[in-house]
């Protein structure tokens, strides 16, 4: 892998990986550290990326690093419920849309952690069910079920208000 290739991969995927790690951990600094470690490994071990899906490979590496960190520090409980998501502010927002955005944000943050992770990986990061299954070491069926439940719970949360 050339320096140019590496920079291109970094520019394309570093922020995505960080965002994913933030909604897994809720910790900005930790997500930066893990994302850096992942990219450091990619560069120093010259991991061949042409043949596979680089995004899911990076996410898988990030997930493994995150899980290993949790096991070491035993801080999983601390991370749960600490994720803060927000919606992009647009200048032409009307009051109705703004209210909907706030409701949506709250409903999303109310989802169980595992469901929210799978849902955001799919909807935000654009990963397919197969890719999410690979990253999270689960079957594709389990991911489909998890995302289905997440969407159902999200709609319920939204429409209960």
């Amino acid at each position, binding site marked *: 892998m050339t320096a140019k290739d590496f920079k291109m991969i970094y520019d394309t995927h570093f922020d995505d990986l960080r965002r994913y790690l933030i909604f897994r951990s809720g910790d900005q600094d930790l997500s*930066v550290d893990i994302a850096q470690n992942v990219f450091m490994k990619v*560069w120093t071990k010259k991991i061949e990326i042409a043949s596979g899906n680089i995004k899911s490979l990076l996410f898988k590496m990030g997930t493994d690093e995150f899980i290993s960190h949790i096991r070491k520090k035993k801080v999983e409980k601390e991370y749960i419920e600490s994720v803060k*998501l927000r919606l992009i502010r647009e200048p032409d927002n009307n009051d109705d849309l703004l209210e909907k*955005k706030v*409701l*949506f944000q709250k409903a999303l943050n109310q989802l169980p952690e595992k469901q929210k992770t799978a849902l955001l990986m799919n909807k935000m990061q654009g990963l397919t069910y197969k890719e999410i299954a690979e990253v999270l070491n689960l079957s594709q069926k389990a991911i489909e079920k998890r995302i289905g439940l997440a969407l159902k719970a999200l*709609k319920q949360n939204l*429409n209960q208000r």
Partner: protein
Amino acid sequence: MSKKEQFNDGEIEDLFSKVEIPLEKDKNHIWSEKFESLVKDDVALSSKKTSFFRLYWHYGVAASFAILLASTLYFYFQNTVSQEAMLVQTLQDSEQDLLADQTIIESLFVEDNEFDEWFEEKYVLSSVN
């Protein structure tokens, strides 16, 4: 408007596209802080290795040409010398053959009583030559 109509599937999808996770540090800042020097060092190291390899590569090509040229010249001169030797040998052989043929033909025309005399003459001539 009933509460159930507040969010339809299309709106939910649209809101998903607007979800943002704020990032505190800029990725370019992280790059210059952590990766820039690492990548530069690695590239410099590999380019040194490359130039070392190229040095040998050039020597290799030069040596191959030298060997090719030397062997071509060697075999060329060897062929020339052996060809010349063969030519000289052929000329000598053909001259002797010619003389022998001449003598045989001449001998056919010599009378029996004169043969001894003719033979002695030829023998003396060939000894002198």
